[in-house]
């Protein structure tokens, strides 16, 4: 009797580890091993195929001497901050408005969430036409009589990146809204009622009570959308193809071009490592602070 209890105890102890081992191995090989491999390639002179020699930081120097890479890095920051800010802000606003027990909420929710069901390729192609001055918005307004109206951001190197932001925000806002809405629904109504009894108006209740209570929803939205922002590769290719004049280059498109089109595998690997470090530098502290507080709080 005693022995069998000890055995099942031991099994209960080991079972989770046993079950997790295969996926852990896959992650170790497919993610971490290849990160290490990419790091190694970035220190080699690899061009068309991997070459396992050592040239120090030469590829990093070359990378940072490429003006297109500077454009890519700047664009990543412009795009990510605007995309995250706008999507989170608009998504939260829409969720709060939808949460006011309005009619046809289900239908509206589906409509707002629908763009998320499209691939970035479809979004990019559609917005490429909508934003083209000779086909889209500008033409419609011009034909309607306002002939001096100009909206040609997509052909202006300085503004083209904002076109990418517009398309990405259009696609992802519904997703942020859905998560915030779920968060709002999880908040106990009695909290709001108590605040109302104390005489607080709705704006104050939202600002000081509800939005702070949505913190876990913010975490999910920001983490998931940052990852969308960094892998925005297909949107760029479909919408602007990194043009006009490389003005909408992103680190991901840069890496693809260097590795597969320009036979600069070493530079491509160096850019991938830079992307990894950037993501780690931003996301890791954020995750750490968020998760640490939850652990302390509970």
């Amino acid at each position, binding site marked *: 009797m005693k022995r069998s209890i000890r055995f099942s105890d031991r099994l209960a102890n080991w079972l989770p580890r046993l079950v997790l081992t295969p996926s852990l191995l896959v992650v170790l090989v497919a993610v971490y091993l290849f990160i290490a491999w990419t790091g190694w390639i970035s220190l080699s002179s690899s061009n068309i*195929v991997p070459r396992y020699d050592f040239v120090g930081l030469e590829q990093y120097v070359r990378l940072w001497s490429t003006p297109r890479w500077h454009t890519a890095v700047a664009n990543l920051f412009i795009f990510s901050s605007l995309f995250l800010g706008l999507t989170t802000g608009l998504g939260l606003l829409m969720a709060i408005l939808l949460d006011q027990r309005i009619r046809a909420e289900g239908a509206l929710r589906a409509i707002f969430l629908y763009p998320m069901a499209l691939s970035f390729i479809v979004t990019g192609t559609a917005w490429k036409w909508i934003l083209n001055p000779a*086909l889209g918005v500008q033409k419609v307004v011009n034909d309607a009589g306002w002939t001096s109206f100009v909206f040609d951001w997509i052909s202006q190197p300085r503004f083209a990146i904002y076109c990418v932001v517009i398309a990405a925000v259009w696609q992802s806002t519904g997703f942020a809204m859905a998560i915030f809405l779920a968060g709002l629904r999880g908040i106990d109504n009695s909290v709001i009622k108590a605040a109302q009894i104390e005489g607080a108006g709705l704006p104050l209740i939202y600002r000081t009570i509800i939005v702070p209570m949505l913190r876990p929803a913010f975490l999910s939205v920001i983490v998931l959308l940052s990852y969308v922002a960094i892998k925005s590769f297909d949107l760029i290719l479909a919408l602007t193809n990194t*043009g*006009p004049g*490389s003005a909408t280059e992103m680190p991901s498109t840069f890496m693809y071009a260097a590795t597969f089109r320009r036979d600069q595998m070493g530079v491509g690997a160096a850019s991938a490592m830079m992307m990894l470090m950037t993501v780690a530098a931003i996301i890791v502290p954020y995750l750490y602070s968020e998760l640490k507080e939850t652990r302390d709080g509970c």
Partner: protein
Amino acid sequence: MNRPKNILLATALALTFAGQAMAQTTIEGLHVWTSASEVGALKVLTDKLATMGFVWQDSAVGGANGANAQQALRTRVAAGNPPAVMQFLGFEGLGWAKEGALRSLNDLYNKNGWQADLPPVMLQFLKQGDDFFATPINMHRQNWVWANKAVFDKAGITPPKSWEELIADGDKLKAIGVTPIAMSDEGWQIEELFESIVTDVNGPDFYKKAIIDLDDEALSGPEMVKAFDLLGKVRGLHDAGYTGRDWAAASAMVANGQAGMQIMGDWAKGEFLAKGMKPGIDFLCFPTPTATPNYKFVFDTFGGFKINNPKINSGQDAVAEAMMDPEVEKNFNLIKGSIPARTDVSMDAFDDCAKRSFADRAEAIKNNAMWGSVTDGFAVEPRFSGVFLDVVGKFFVSDMTSQDAAKALVDGINNAR
């Protein structure tokens, strides 16, 4: 009939078919040809292979200007499973040959004397060290202007004799409400325009020195600045909707009279022919205007990977022999819109644009005025041609000065060395 007999019969039949299938070797070819004319042209080659006893297994990977196919190839080679033959453009084949991945075709070249049948300047893309590794099938000319005849007549203009004249003609086209030049803001399309200008204004020798040999002084010199100045003047000659336009859409604008002309390689010809238009009657083809005639080329080759299987190897040889067959080259190019790589093929069956291309090429070979184009990877290795695309593309859409552009070229090239 009783059962065992049936089984025997079935087995016998199965064995017969299996035997037939064994006799024919399958040759896998990885390529980027997916459009109607490309697929049609490829069929000429694969039909020839069938008569030689080889079955062509088609692996077409289209999209992204060949980058998808390159990615597929890299994956296959890394996995130790390369295709029997692979289509190469420009330096792609040389890169693989340098890695020692390609089979030598020296025996075939020596036996057939193919070197003598090809324009000499082509050989550098077919040979690494002492080894031939690929065979060509066609040649496209890149520095063409395609014009709508009716529009030209209405504006009262004829094919211009210089770039200054071409740019001035733009105003006449604007006056009759037509977009002078149908184009796109894509880097490679602007680069096509730019390299035509560089060669036409400064001569083919300068092109060789600055762009093929990447000479610092020539790259940043006054000739280059002058070429950028001229390119800058083209800015006013396109329409507002040129963002991200496909080259074929630009050809369509010329074909239906919305635009006067397009500067594009002769793959554009198919777009006009497909609309039932006739060269010289409905549309015009003439080389980009210059006082120093030159010929900018692009061509397709296939090379075979080293595979330890004599049957596959004989199939790789068969592909090379079929490609260099004059009759195959003729019929292939009648469909594809290019001209034969061989210089000894009769051009009687071809249209006037192709005949002009063939005649101009013969002249350019004599005058040493024939060079590969940057855009399609026949001038410099991809890491350098990328710099040209970046700088020229950026120059065209921004307010960068010609001097800054020339300097950015030199800096970019030196960084990529």
